[in-house]
């Protein structure tokens, strides 16, 4: 396994993504999940709007506490309030939708139309979604706790960077599981085992793809970590716009990631590359 072959594999995955781009059925699930996220952000951001306040006010109070009901602290707290909702949405709605998109994308590079529904596999998809989310979050959360104990400085930054790496590795281990269900309707445990097998086949390309996706999303994440400064020095509403832009960026990067991963899973020979 040379670096050269990793790059060839990554390029192969990206070419699969490019070919899927023109298939509406492949793109729409990613757009749909982006729309769900935008709706959720707007629900939290405009929590006093008529028609939704009956649900959004209690939600904001539960997620952000009493201080999140005040302007502009509400917008400082917004990324933090949205984070757990996003993770839950990703596991329950995002991963199944991504799997549906991958299934449609596979048609373009696998040449096999699978008309059977993914609905029976929904529980399995949610299960692998939860595992994927836990694996992605565990490393960064642990490192954040450790960094909090060490205080500010190089050591803390090092621990946080290690957390990001652990997060990427965690995702890499289970990122193939929804793809496995989408392509071969496996059970949750079967899909998780398959994911580990595929990762062991393509460790380098998988990590490269996930690292690129993490890098693309990094500026938005870093900006939102300093929401307090954005609120104080610029306009409080800028936080909402950054979050909405982040959703768009994430939808594109998720599309590229999962269709590329699917391309890798299917394999070069089968795709005719």
């Amino acid at each position, binding site marked *: 396994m040379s670096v050269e072959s990793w790059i060839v594999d990554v390029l192969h995955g990206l070419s699969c993504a490019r070919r899927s781009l023109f298939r509406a059925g492949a793109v729409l699930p990613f757009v749909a999940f982006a729309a769900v996220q935008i709706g959720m952000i707007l629900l939290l951001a405009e929590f*006093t709007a008529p028609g939704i*306040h*009956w*649900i959004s*006010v*209690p*939600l904001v109070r539960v997620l952000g506490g009493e201080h999140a*009901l*005040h*302007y*502009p602290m*509400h917008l400082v707290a917004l990324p933090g309030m949205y984070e757990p909702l996003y993770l839950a949405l990703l596991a329950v709605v995002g991963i199944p939708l991504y799997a549906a998109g991958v299934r449609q994308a596979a048609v373009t590079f696998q040449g096999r139309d699978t008309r059977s529904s993914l609905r029976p596999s929904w529980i399995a998809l949610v299960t692998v979604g939860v595992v994927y989310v836990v694996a992605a979050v565990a490393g960064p959360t642990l490192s954040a706790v450790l960094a909090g104990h060490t205080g500010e400085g190089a050591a803390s930054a090092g621990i946080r960077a290690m957390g990001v790496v652990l997060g990427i590795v965690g995702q890499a281990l289970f990122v193939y599981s929804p793809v496995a269900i989408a392509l071969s309707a496996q059970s949750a445990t079967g899909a998780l085992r398959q994911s580990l097998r595929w990762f062991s086949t393509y460790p380098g390309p998988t990590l490269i793809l996930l690292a690129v996706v993490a890098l693309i999303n990094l500026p938005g994440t870093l900006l939102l970590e300093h929401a307090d400064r954005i609120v104080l020095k610029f306009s*409080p509403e800028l936080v909402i716009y950054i979050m909405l832009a982040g959703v768009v960026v994430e939808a594109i990067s998720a599309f590229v990631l999962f269709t590329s991963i699917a391309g890798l899973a299917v394999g070069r020979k089968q795709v005719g590359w």
Partner: protein
Amino acid sequence: MVKVRLVFAVCAVALVAGGCRSHDGIRARYGREKLLWRAQLLERRINLAFLRGSSSDLASAIAAFQQIVDSDRPAGGVPADWSPQTVRDMKKIQSVSRVALATLYFLQKRYHDAGEMYRRAANSARSTPADLDLRMSRVRSLYLAGDTDSLAVSAERIISRIETDNSLWTPSRPLADVYLNVPLVLAQQYLETRNRAQFKRVAQRAETIYDRVARTWPDSAVTASAAIARMNLQMMGKNWTGTLKTIREVLPSQYVAPMRGELELIRAEVLAWGTKDTARARKLLTAISHDYDGSRTAAAARFDIAVLELHGGQPDQGVARLVALEADKSVDESIRARAMLARARHVEKANRWDEAVVVLRRIMGLYPDTEAAMEAPLIITQHYARTGHHDLALQSLKSAREYYLTRIERGGNRSIPASDFTDMMIETYLSAGKADAIASLLESRGARWKPADAAGALIRSAAIYSDVLDNPGQARRVLEKCIEMYPESRYAKLARREMEQLQQPAAN
């Protein structure tokens, strides 16, 4: 699958149950906080751009805070289902907005509106530490608005609060200096309205407060400030013995060290012109001129010695001292101008007018922005009018007019406001017997002046029409014009009061 549905059902019921509560209070508070944030953003911009004086920002900020203040209470009062915390938050937002709005009105020179807004803020902050500060700000606004009645009421309230509120007399936390001046403002007010009895009453209350300050915080900065305030009050009431005693008591304090020279000068001047103890005054002035050599205080002492000599039988010595002061480049130009003016007046009295007029014209040429230069055209015109040289008086009036108008149009200078130049111009015209000309000039010329100066000029024009020219009809017309043109200014209030007084004799 059944379990999942059950969880969803429980969540839905919880959300609906939570949602059934009214969140109107939270929503209203959020909206108000949003408005406040935006208004405060504009306010910060004004503070940043204060030197450039951004008037559009000021107007926008006022509109923004006004919107919050106007939305004080929803129709029908505070709804019963608002939580106590929400009600408290809303009150705080209102209070912050009122204070900010008052400050912005003050910046915009809408002193009457500022005073009213400070009153509303103080009423809602009653019996809190902020209350007194807000009332103090109200007094300042009313003073500048010329609303003497409200000013007196507010100042009386502050004095009462200082007298009765024991929390202000904590030994560990001295009273702020600014409160010590409230009785002074009120006393000044009563003096201006010639209400001697009220002046005495305020002076007595002030003395009691100053005594208590000295007992509560002995040998402290606030005690020194109280002594200075007492001295000013005594000087206002022409209580020269009391003034001398107060200065003697405060001089040893370390807290008056930076102004010791000025205090000694005041002491000497009180001795010279108050108690007429010229021998002691002269001794003291000589000591000051040596002890503080090179300072403005020493120069002022030298000037005072010269004046004492001029009036005390040593005119030649006095003139020589004045000439030396005029020639001393290290001396402040206002003192040099005063020295020239004193010399000009002395030679005028000695019937050497040709010599006097040269000195007076030199003052106008060398130091045009000093008080001495401001008096020079009046002295020249008065002299020619008194001696029957009407052509020369008119000629002098022409140059005086140019001099004064130039300074009034500039809005005065750092040390002399435009209104002082206006008053001096009026006196010059009156001395030349040209009351109608100055009344008409003040009415017509105002358009080029700053609004406050123009409004003041209209009031003065009306006073000349009614008091000098005995033409109440014209006076009323000018006052109406003032009210119409400057409805928000203190002059509009003055004009209304003048009109009432003009109508009283007619009614009788």
